[in-house]
C-alpha cells in the first residue's frame, strides 16, 4: 500500500471528488489499477497473518504464565485442606441439652459438642461456654460439685467468663451435694429459677446468656434418696448477636490482634480478655547484663492443661533476661487450646502425636521435644527444660547465667536444676547458696547437648517400656555418678494439682509449702566452689566450722536445734552403707520434707536450714565425712514404724503430669 502513490503529474479535476478522480485514473491506467488490486490483496493477506500471529502470541503468553508457576513450583503435596464450614449466617442456634444419671450431651445446631457417658467419670455440673456471635465452643468444664470445694472453682470460673457469653449447664449423676449457697446464688443471678432448690440426684439443664436473657431451663426432681430424677432433654433456640457486639474494642495493635483472636476463641482466662482494662500479654522484663543464657533454647513441655500453661508462660515471660525467640512449647497431642495460649503470647508451639500411654507417653514426648529443640537450635550447647505446671522465678535466668559455665566446664556435672527437693519454707533460707546433689530434681533444669546427643538420646526408653523419663535419668547407668547443681531456694514452683501422678492431697503435702525465690537479681555466692574438688574443700571447711548438736535429744523436736541464727550445726545419723537410708527417711518424715525417696544427698551428706541455721546431716559410717564425727558421739538411729502402711508407690513427681 505504501508503494502506491497517486500520480502527481495528473491533477484531479476540481469539481470531482478525490475518489472519483482516483477511480477515473485507475480506470484509465490499467497497470496502476492492477498494482492497486494486488496491493489490496497483499494487505488482506498480511492482516490475516498478523491476526493469526496475534492470536497465537496471546495464547502462548497466557499458557506460559500458567506453566510458569505450574511446573517446578507447584507444591507436590496435594494440599489437603479441610473444607471450611460455610460461614454461618444463621442468626439462631438450635441447642439441645441432655441431663441424666449416666449420660450427658450437648448439641449445638446438630453438632454434638459434649457427650459423656463414661462410667464413674464426669460426675457433677458440666458447663459449656459459647461465643454469642459465632456459636463456637469457647470453654468446656466439669465441676464435680458432689465433692467439696469444686463449687468454689465453678464460681471462680463463671466469674471469669465475659458478659454476653452463652452458658450451658447440665448435670451428670449428682451435682448438688457440695453445691453451696454462694454457688447457687451465682447460678440464680444468671437467671436460673431452679438452682437455689437443686437437691440430691436432681437432673437439671439450663441455657442462658451471662448478664442477659434465659433461653431455657429444665429440671427433674429425684423422687427418693435412692433414685435419680428422670432424664431431662432441653431443646431451645439461642439468638446470635453480631460479631462487633461480641468483641471488645481494643486499639488496633499487633498485640491486641493476638488478644482478639484468643479471646474470641476461648474463655476462662479472666482479665486478659477484659474489654476495659485487659492485663498485658507482653512483659518486657529488664534485660540481664552479660546474659550467658540468652541464646539457650527453652523447651516448655506441655499437655492439655491450657490454664496451667497460661500461668506458666506469664511467669516465664516476666523473668528477667528471658528471650522469647528461644522458647518453644511442645504440646503432647493435638489440643487446640494450649496452642491458642502459645499464640496469644506470640511464641512458637509444636504439637506431638501421642505415642504410647501414661508415663511412657510422657517419656516419648520428652524425647521428641528434646530432639526437636536441638534440631531447631543447632548451635545451642544447652537446653532449658520446663514444664507447664511451674512458676518461674524472676531471677531464673540470672541464676542460670551465673552458673551455666560450670556445666560446660565440669564434666562431673549432670545438670543444673532450679528445684531443691528439700527446699521448703522451713528448710531453705539463702537465695545465694548453691548445692551439689547426687539426685536429678528436674522441674526446671538445664541439659547439656552432648549429654543428650551422645548418651541419652540413643538409649532413651522405647515406647513399650512404661518408664518415667525422670526415673530413668536418675538410674546409675545414666547418671554415672555425676551430680546436679541446685539452689537452696528453688527458682521454680510446682503448682500443678491435676496430673498423671498428682492429686490435691499429694500436692498439699509435698509441694505447697515449697520455698520459691521472689527476689530479683540475686548475686550467687562463691559459684566457683561448686566445682568438683572445690566443693569438697568447701564441705570440709563447713564441717570444720560446724557445731555438733546434742545427740541425746530427739532430732524431730524443735529444741534439737538451738534458737540461734546464722550458725552451722551438724548431726550424725546411722547409715550402714551407701544405700542405707532408713534413718534419713524417718528424719525427713518428721522434718516434713521430701521422704518418698532419697533426694538432695551428696556423699551421705544433706544440707538444709533449720531455724535459719545451716543444718548438716552426715550418714555414719557410709559417708566419707564420717571422720568429722567426734568419737564421743553416737550416730542417731531412727526405726521405721513397725507396721508399714502398705507399699507406698513412689510417684514420679518431676514428670509433666498430663491428664
Amino acid at each position, binding site marked *: 500500500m505504501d508503494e502506491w502513490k497517486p500520480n502527481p503529474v495528473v491533477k484531479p479535476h476540481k469539481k470531482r471528488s478525490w475518489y472519483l478522480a482516483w*477511480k477515473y485514473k485507475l480506470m484509465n491506467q490499467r497497470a496502476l489499477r492492477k498494482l492497486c*488490486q494486488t496491493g*489490496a490483496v497483499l494487505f488482506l493477506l498480511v492482516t490475516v497473518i498478523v491476526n493469526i500471529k496475534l492470536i497465537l502470541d496471546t495464547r502462548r503468553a497466557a499458557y506460559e504464565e500458567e506453566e510458569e508457576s505450574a511446573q517446578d513450583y507447584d507444591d507436590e503435596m496435594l494440599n489437603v485442606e479441610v473444607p471450611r464450614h460455610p460461614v454461618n449466617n444463621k442468626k439462631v442456634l438450635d441447642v439441645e441439652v441432655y441431663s441424666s444419671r449416666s449420660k450427658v450431651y450437648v448439641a449445638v445446631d446438630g453438632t454434638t459438642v459434649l457427650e459423656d457417658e463414661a462410667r464413674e467419670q464426669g460426675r457433677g455440673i458440666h458447663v459449656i461456654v459459647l461465643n454469642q456471635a459465632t456459636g463456637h465452643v469457647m470453654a468446656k468444664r466439669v465441676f464435680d460439685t458432689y465433692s467439696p470445694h469444686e463449687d468454689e472453682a465453678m464460681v471462680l470460673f463463671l466469674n471469669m467468663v465475659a458478659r454476653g457469653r452463652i452458658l450451658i449447664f447440665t448435670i451428670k449423676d449428682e451435682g448438688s451435694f457440695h453445691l453451696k449457697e454462694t454457688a447457687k446464688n451465682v447460678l440464680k443471678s444468671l437467671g436460673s429459677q431452679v438452682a437455689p432448690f437443686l437437691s440430691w440426684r436432681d437432673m437439671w439443664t439450663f441455657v442462658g446468656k451471662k448478664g442477659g436473657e434465659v433461653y431455657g431451663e429444665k429440671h427433674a426432681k429425684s423422687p427418693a434418696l435412692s433414685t435419680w430424677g428422670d432424664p431431662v432433654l432441653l431443646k431451645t433456640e439461642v439468638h446470635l448477636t453480631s460479631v462487633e457486639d461480641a468483641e471488645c474494642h481494643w486499639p488496633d495493635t499487633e498485640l491486641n490482634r493476638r488478644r482478639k483472636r484468643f479471646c474470641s476463641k476461648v474463655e476462662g482466662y479472666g482479665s486478659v480478655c477484659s474489654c476495659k482494662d485487659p492485663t498485658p500479654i507482653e512483659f518486657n522484663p529488664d534485660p540481664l547484663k552479660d546474659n550467658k543464657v540468652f541464646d539457650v533454647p527453652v523447651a516448655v513441655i506441655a499437655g492439655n492443661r491450657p490454664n496451667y500453661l497460661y500461668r506458666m508462660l506469664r511467669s516465664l515471660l516476666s523473668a528477667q533476661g528471658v528471650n522469647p525467640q528461644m522458647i518453644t512449647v511442645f504440646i503432647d497431642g493435638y489440643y487446640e487450646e494450649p496452642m491458642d495460649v502459645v499464640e496469644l503470647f506470640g511464641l512458637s508451639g509444636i504439637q506431638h502425636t501421642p505415642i504410647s500411654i501414661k508415663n511412657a507417653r510422657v517419656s516419648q514426648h520428652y524425647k521428641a521435644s528434646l530432639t526437636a529443640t536441638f534440631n531447631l537450635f543447632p548451635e545451642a550447647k544447652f537446653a532449658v527444660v520446663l514444664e507447664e505446671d511451674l512458676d518461674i522465678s524472676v531471677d531464673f535466668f540470672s541464676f542460670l547465667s551465673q552458673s551455666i559455665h560450670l556445666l560446660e566446664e565440669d564434666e562431673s556435672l549432670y545438670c543444673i536444676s532450679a528445684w531443691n527437693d528439700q527446699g521448703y519454707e522451713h528448710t531453705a533460707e539463702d537465695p545465694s547458696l548453691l548445692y551439689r546433689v547426687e539426685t536429678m530434681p528436674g522441674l526446671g533444669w538445664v541439659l547439656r547437648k552432648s549429654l543428650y546427643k551422645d548418651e541419652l538420646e540413643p538409649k532413651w526408653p522405647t515406647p513399650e517400656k512404661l518408664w518415667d523419663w525422670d526415673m530413668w535419668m536418675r538410674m546409675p547407668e545414666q547418671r554415672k555418678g555425676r551430680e546436679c547443681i541446685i539452689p537452696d531456694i528453688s527458682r521454680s514452683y510446682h503448682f500443678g494439682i491435676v496430673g498423671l501422678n498428682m492429686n490435691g492431697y499429694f500436692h498439699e503435702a509435698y509441694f505447697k509449702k515449697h520455698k520459691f525465690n521472689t527476689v530479683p537479681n540475686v548475686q550467687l555466692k562463691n559459684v566457683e566452689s561448686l566445682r568438683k574438688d572445690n566443693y569438697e574443700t568447701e564441705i570440709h571447711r563447713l564441717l570444720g566450722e560446724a557445731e555438733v548438736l546434742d545427740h541425746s535429744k530427739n532430732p524431730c523436736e524443735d529444741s534439737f536445734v538451738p534458737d540461734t541464727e546464722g550458725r552451722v550445726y551438724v548431726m550424725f545419723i546411722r547409715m550402714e552403707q551407701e544405700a542405707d537410708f532408713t534413718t534419713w527417711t524417718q528424719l525427713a518424715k518428721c522434718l516434713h520434707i521430701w521422704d518418698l525417696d532419697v533426694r538432695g544427698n551428696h556423699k551421705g551428706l544433706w544440707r538444709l536450714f533449720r531455724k535459719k541455721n545451716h543444718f548438716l546431716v552426715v550418714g555414719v559410717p557410709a559417708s566419707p565425712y564420717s571422720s568429722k564425727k567426734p568419737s564421743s558421739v553416737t550416730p542417731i538411729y531412727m526405726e521405721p514404724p513397725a507396721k508399714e502402711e502398705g507399699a507406698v508407690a513412689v510417684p514420679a513427681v518431676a514428670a509433666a503430669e498430663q491428664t
Partner: protein
Amino acid sequence: MQKINRNVVLALLSLTSLVFLLFQLCYYKFYLSQKNGAAFSKVRGSQSGQDSTRWHVVRKFLGLISSHNIPVYLIDPLILGLINKDIEQIRSSPDGPSPECKYFCAPRDFTTFALLDKTWKHEVGLFRTAEKMGFQWLKIINKDPRLDGMDDLSGMEIPLHYIFKLASHAIHLVVFYERSGNFLWHGPLRLKQHMDRKFVPFRKLHFGRYPGAYEKPELLLVSIDDLKVQIPKNPSSFLQEMSHSRFLECRYREARAFFQLYPDDASLDAVEFRKKAKSLLHLAALTLNNLGVKFWLSSGTCLGWYRQCNVIPHSKDVDLGIFIRDYKADIIPAFQKAGLPLKHKFGKVEDSLELSFQGEDDVKLDIFFFYEEDDHIWNGGTQAKSGKKFKYLFPKFTLCWTEFVELKVHVPCETQQYVEANYGPEWKVPVKMWDWKSSPSNVQDNGVWPVDEWDEVIQIY
C-alpha cells in the same frame, strides 16, 4: 461495471481489515497492561526509566528493612557477578560515591536478598509498613524440615521465601535457617493452590527451584550505587557455592516406613557402633574438608542415609567416595595426623585406588576413588590374597548436599540409581551377609594385578 465493483469490494475489504487490525492491536495492548509490569517490560525491552525503577525499588526495600532492624544481605547472582569484577575497588573504598548506577540498574526482573531467620522476630509490622510504602508482598511458607525427621511432630509452618513487588521490579527475600551440621539451608519455593501464580514470573527466580545448603557467609558492608548493603565478603566463592548448592532432604517418611517393617536395632552394640561411626565420619569430614577434597557418602553409608536416615548398625564401616581427579597425595598423611592409621591401600592413582583407615575399635573408614568414563563412573576393588581386580560400575551422577548425623555432606543427587546400581532392586531389604566381591549387582571381574606390581598395589598394614 464489473471492474469498478471489484475495486470497491477490494477497497472495502482492505478498510475492514485495517479497522480489525487496529482493534486487535488495541486489544493486545490492553491484555498486556493487565499482566504484571515485568511481562510488559519483557516485551518493550529495557529503557532508562526501567533502570532507575530497579534502583528505586531496591532503595525503598533497604529502607524498609533497616527501619525494622532486619539484617539482610545481597545474594543476587547477577549483581554479585558485577560486583565481583570490581571487588578490589569496592573493598578498598567502601564509602566512595558512585558516579553512575552500575549495579542496581542492571537489567533484571528481581533483586535477591538473604535473611537469616534467627536474626529477626517475624514482626508483622514489617508487612504493614511494606504495604504503606506501596509494596505488594507474597509469603511462601512450608513445613519445617528440621522437624521432619521427628516422629509425628507438627510445628508451625515456617516462612521460606518472601517476594516484595513494587512497580515493575520485585525483591526476592530468601530465608535461611541454621541446620544441625553447622550450615545454612533455604527451602524450595512451592506455590500452594490458592496462591497467585502470576504474582511474578516465578521461573526466573534464582533461588527456590531446589532447596540449597550454604556455609555461613562472612559479610561485608559496602556502599554501591549510593546504597549501603551487606554482601558476602567473597562474592566469587559465594557464586561458586551457589552453583553447587542443591540440597536433598533425607526421605524421612520412607525411613519411618522402613523401620515399621524392620524395627531398628536398639541394642547397646548398635548404639555404640552408631556413635563410633558418627564420630569417625565427623573426623573424616573435617580432615577432607581441610584439604579441600570433595567426597560423598558411598556404599553402605549412602544406603543407610537413603533407606533409613541413619547409620546401618550392622555395616561395620564407613564408606566414602572421592573422584580420582580430586585425589591429593596429602590425604594419607592428613588422616594419619588425625589419628587414623592407614590399614590398607589397594591399586594406584591410575587404576582402582582404594584406601582404608583404621578408626577407633575396629570401625574402618573406606575411601573409594571413582574414575569417570564417557557414559559411566566406576571404582575398583582388589582381593588381597589373589590379586584379583574388580570393577563396580555406576551410572553418571552429580553431587548434592544433605544432612546426615549432624553433618553437611555430599551424596549423589541421583541416589536411587546409585544405590540400585550397588545393591540391586532389592536394596530396601536389609541384608546382613554381604560379600563385597559377589553381592553387589554392579561388580565385574577386571583381571588380575601383574605379580610384579603387587608390592605397590596391595599394601596391608
